[in-house]
């Protein structure tokens, strides 16, 4: 019995392991190797192994600017989703029977629509003749349209909307675990609503906010569709730059090196945030 049952767990995990290796590790390895190779329009890709692409990226401020912009957009998107998504999750959790379901659908519904459609929708709203500008002008608040398309601001707005559901889900998951009596306990000890939120509810929401932040940051940093549509060709981020290198410059090795660096940055930030979060929360939740 034992001899038979023991290899079973390993056997059962083989399909998942295969998928992991074939669809994640191998392409990653391929990209890594590609990033070390050399390219010129005359010779095409040459199978050498050197760090020339990385040296080029680090020595050219053009790339640094794009990395900085990508980071800015990702950080601000994360902040916006925190500032709006966390309270939204809290409000959703407090809603009564029919409304909670309805508004949950409204909040998470965008997930059911393709990112491209949603970004195009934002393009309509943000454009010079878009609804936002027209509304502001007809109210007499502004005289000329505000430039929102092809700006970091516009990208952050659209991307915050696209990624908001992930923050809401992450925060709601933590809120669901909270004991509602803890809030009553705070009131019974003399604390008003503000103190109770600030000192009792918010600290307990932090693990969810952290999880949401890691998710949103990683997705915002590597997002392609929204920056492509709202940011356009001029306002490049790493993901759209990689795309251009592959498709227009045909410099696959340089694109691969950029992709690897983006990957590395995202992994480092995600793991770093996770470390900080775990160190902070371990004592109360373990």
């Amino acid at each position: 019995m034992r001899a038979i049952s023991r290899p079973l767990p390993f056997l059962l995990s083989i399909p998942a392991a295969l998928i992991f290796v074939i669809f994640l590790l191998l392409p990653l390895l391929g990209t890594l190797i590609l990033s070390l190779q050399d390219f010129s329009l005359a010779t095409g890709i040459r199978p050498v192994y050197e760090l020339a692409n990385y040296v080029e990226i680090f020595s050219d401020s053009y790339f640094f600017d794009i990395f900085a912009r990508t980071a800015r957009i990702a950080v601000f998107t994360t902040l916006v989703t925190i500032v709006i998504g966390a309270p939204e999750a809290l409000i959703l959790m407090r809603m009564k029977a029919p409304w909670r379901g309805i508004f949950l659908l409204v909040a998470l519904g965008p997930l059911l629509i393709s990112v491209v459609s949603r970004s195009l929708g934002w393009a309509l709203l943000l454009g010079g003749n878009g609804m936002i500008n027209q509304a502001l002008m007809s109210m007499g608040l502004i005289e000329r349209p505000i430039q929102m398309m092809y700006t970091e601001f516009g990208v952050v707005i659209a991307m915050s909307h696209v990624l908001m559901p992930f923050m809401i889900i992450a925060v709601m998951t933590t809120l669901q675990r909270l004991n509602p009596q803890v809030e009553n306990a705070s009131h019974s000890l003399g604390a008003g609503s503000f103190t109770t939120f600030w000192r009792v509810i918010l600290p307990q929401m932090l693990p969810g906010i952290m999880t949401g932040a890691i998710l949103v940051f990683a997705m915002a940093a590597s997002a392609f569709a929204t920056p492509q549509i709202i940011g356009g060709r001029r306002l490049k981020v790493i993901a759209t730059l990689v795309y251009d290198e592959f498709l227009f410059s045909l410099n696959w090795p340089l694109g691969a090196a950029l992709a690897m660096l983006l990957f590395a940055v995202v992994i480092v930030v995600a793991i770093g945030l996770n470390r900080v979060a775990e160190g902070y929360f371990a004592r109360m939740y373990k």
Partner: protein
Amino acid sequence: MSPVTKADNTPSASFLAIDGLTKTYNKVTVVDRFALEVEEGEFVSLLGPSGCGKTTTLQMLGGFVDPSAGSIRLEGRDLIAAPPSKRGLGMVFQSYALFPHMTAAQNIAYGLEVRKVPRAERDERVRQALDLVGLGAYGDRYPRRMSGGQQQRVALARALVIRPRVLLLDEPLSNLDANLREEMQIELRRIQQTTGTTTILVTHDQTEAMALSDRIVLMRAGRIEQIGGPEAVYARPANSFVARFLGKTNLFPGTVGADGRSISIGSHVFAAPAAATPGATIVAVRPEKLGFGEGGIRGVVRNRVFQGTQWLVELDTEHGPAIVQRQNLGAVPPAIGEATGLVFEPDAVHLMAPEADK
């Protein structure tokens, strides 16, 4: 404790006066005209089966459930208008409801910080509170790393440190195992007597209510059935519900003679312990007050259980099932299947009106 200063215009002289307190959810009345007066320093238990409205009553006192009707006055001050944070009551929740992101000491300090008690005094009071509940060495622990009993004591210390006028406890011991529960009952009573805090405890455990309280409020389906001291409600239950809820009991149908001085249960006639109203009655006798002998009520032993310090004997009598509890003093009670008589002292019985029975 600060001296009691009662407002002169108090409608009721009581420290805490609850009157006509009612809660209705969608036309279903879950607490019905609850009325109770509590003296300062008193320990009162709300006792009743699950769903009888104990928690709802306590939550109305705490301010977490809005009453549909009724009044609550503490030292003459109307509490209903005040939000929970202004009531000055200490509450220990069934789930403890500790702040998971704060240490035991921080949990306890919270109420003092909210009250802006100066740092030095705060630290001192937190230390005293931790000592009071026997957790002096555990101030830096997070709740997750404490046992259920320890968490319960932190919750108690947290509620007590703000020196509440009234301490409200909602089944604080129900999550603990039997040994710890008994320990905590003794602890709770000691702490309550040390601090002199007026306390209202919700429980569905009758031994807990009897062990801890000065008075017990028995509730059923949102109504108060009886209020009284533990010995009084045990010895003189108002009706068979109360009698049964407070422990095992024997209920025999009987008749009080025309002179009001004799009682008969079938053919067994005995002197009434006190003058009684003639007519049908229910005779309640506690199992420890029944003995085996000649005469009395006739019955056959159905089951016999030895429990070390005592015997528990179940019988079928001509007036229904009966249960007898005999201390183990060496004598062996009748065996299963044996016929015997059940005897008792006339003053061991308590009479209840039959219409009070349900």
